[in-house]
């Protein structure tokens, strides 16, 4: 297990990581998700020992690698001694060494017999399906093959922790899908403790056992993928995930529901008596809204709003509507559903959703 306590790092005047706490459970894939420039790579570099933190402690398997030990001076264990694997965002294979020698490089520091180095390298080449490329140089491989070799080089030393920094960004577009599946397979097979950095929501959802969202220099929220993608606990996370965010006021209890008002328009939320009379934030996922031309009678959709479509944004598989229901609200459907609906800008439609998908938290 990796434990990070009150970690801080600034570059000159600019504070990048402030008082960050995080636990990375053993034999799990934890995805560190955050927008570009949120300090993800900085955090990885501190965990790896390549960058010393300004303050705070880092433990790898209960072993202090950064921080103050009682009565002694500051601990800063060298990268090599941390027994980690690190796959960088840009492919970092040694260009003057063949793939075989790249993968064997770390093994040669471990005081192993020549036979053992050879067996482990050959096995690893086979594991990442690069046996045929053992004697080629990195620049003769595709981006995806190179990144697989880089992963092999990190895994072959059997590290206690694997750090992956946007591992897919170096892969050429037509190979991304295969590479993702391969990577998922490696991580599932090896059950190695992994911290996986990305800014891509789909990738995070696909790879993660746990997700930690990094924003404003600290961890905004942690949880399993379903939790994170359905119930953001802060405006930052809701915003990052593309949720609708509304300032609202909790009014009172009614029929087992909480009445909340957005710009004086009442909505039904799940009951939480602690919130009555307070200023709150409502968030709702665009995918959780249903659009229809007739009022929904389904009792589950107990919120029904009538509004006008002001914007339609279409991609290959989804359509996002912006509907003015007294305030603008975004709703997302599949492109097929949109076709069946047959609506256009200026049309009046009903937007319906259940109280269950409306997230409520106190305004900070």
């Amino acid at each position, binding site marked *: 297990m990796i434990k990070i306590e009150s970690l801080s790092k600034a570059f000159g005047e600019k504070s990048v990581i402030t008082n960050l706490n995080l636990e990375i459970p053993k034999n799990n894939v934890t995805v560190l998700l955050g927008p570009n420039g949120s300090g993800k790579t900085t955090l990885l570099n501190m965990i*790896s020992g*390549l960058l010393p933190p300004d303050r705070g402690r880092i433990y790898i398997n209960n072993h202090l690698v950064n921080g103050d030990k009682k009565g002694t001076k500051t601990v800063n264990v*060298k*990268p*090599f*001694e*941390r027994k*980690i*694997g*690190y796959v*960088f965002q*840009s492919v*970092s294979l*040694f*260009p*003057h060494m*063949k793939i075989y020698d790249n993968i064997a*490089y*770390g093994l*040669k*520091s471990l005081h192993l017999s020549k036979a053992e180095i050879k067996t482990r390298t050959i096995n690893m080449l086979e594991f990442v399906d690069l046996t045929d490329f053992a004697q*080629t*140089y*990195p*620049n*003769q491989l595709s981006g995806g093959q190179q990144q697989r070799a880089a992963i092999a*080089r*990190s895994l072959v*030393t059997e590290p206690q922790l694997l750090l992956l920094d946007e591992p897919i960004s170096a892969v050429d577009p037509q190979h991304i899908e295969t590479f993702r599946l391969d990577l998922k397979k490696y991580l599932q097979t090896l059950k190695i403790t992994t911290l996986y950095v990305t800014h891509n929501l789909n990738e995070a959802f696909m790879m993660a056992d746990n997700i930690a969202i990094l924003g404003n220099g600290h961890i905004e929220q942690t949880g399993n993928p379903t939790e994170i993608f359905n119930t953001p606990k802060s405006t930052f996370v809701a915003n990052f995930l593309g949720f609708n965010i509304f300032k609202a006021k909790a009014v009172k209890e009614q029929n087992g529901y909480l009445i909340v008002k957005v710009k004086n328009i009442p909505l039904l939320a799940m009951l939480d008596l602690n919130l009555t009379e307070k200023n709150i934030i409502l968030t709702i996922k665009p995918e959780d809204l249903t659009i229809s031309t007739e009022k929904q009678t389904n009792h589950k959709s107990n919120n029904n709003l009538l509004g006008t479509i002001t914007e339609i944004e279409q991609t290959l598989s989804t359509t996002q509507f912006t509907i003015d229901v007294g305030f603008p609200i975004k709703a997302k459907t599949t492109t097929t559903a949109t076709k069946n609906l047959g609506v256009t800008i200026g049309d009046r439609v009903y937007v319906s959703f259940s109280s269950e998908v409306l997230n409520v938290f106190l305004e900070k």
Partner: protein
Amino acid sequence: MIYTPNRQLQQNKQSKISQLADKTVFTFFILIVAIYVIFLALPLVSIFLEFDLTQISLHLQTPEVIDAIKLSLYTSLIATCVSIFLAVPTGYFLATRKFYGKAIIDTLFDLPLVLPPAVAGIALLYTFAPRGLLGPLFNSLGITISGYTIAVVIAETFVASPFLIRAVKIGFENQNRTLHDSAKILTGSRLRVFFTISLPLAMRAIISGTVMTWARAMGEFGATLMFAGNLPRITQTMPLAIYNMLYTDTASGLMLAIILISISFAVIIIVKLLEQKRYGEHK
């Protein structure tokens, strides 16, 4: 826009004028390039035209020529070895460390590149000659430098080694940091990172810098003449011999010149090939 026949005519006229202008400028440029090429190539060609190539073996037997070639090879190789010994560690240090006064040292190392060789020669003279700055020291040790072969080596090293420092510095500076970070995670030994990553990645730059340094040492004239003198067999290198033979044995001088031209070409080709080579090619 409305197209009237008149307007179209006008446009055609205009485009004809601009076409003509284009052609004129283009011809002008070709002319400049041609003049320049001739200006650079003609002197080289003239040497070959003047020299009777069938006489090579004859001139190669001239004792003065043999001595000059031997001395040039001998001194330039020593100067190159000394340069490697001094410039590789220095270049690495300058490329990888930050320290106070680094900019001054950088400038100092670039200075010999632009310093007139005659100035370098007189500066060396005032340092190493018996009445120079270090004269008393060498006198007390019973060593005389100026006028001896060692002076040739010193002059060549002084003038040529900055080429190597530059190349080495660039070779180490332009390395991808991520490669070093990767290596630091995979091995705990800084020496191993240096010898397996940093040095091999800088090797092309070091080799091409070495070749350039050697070529510069072979061609050194001014500093050698001022500092070491022009004594046959002792300090008379090929360029000095060419100078000496100008009025006495022109043909031998031309032959030495042809050898030096060939070396220059070979050096440029080697450097260009090194720049183009990618790992894993020409197996």
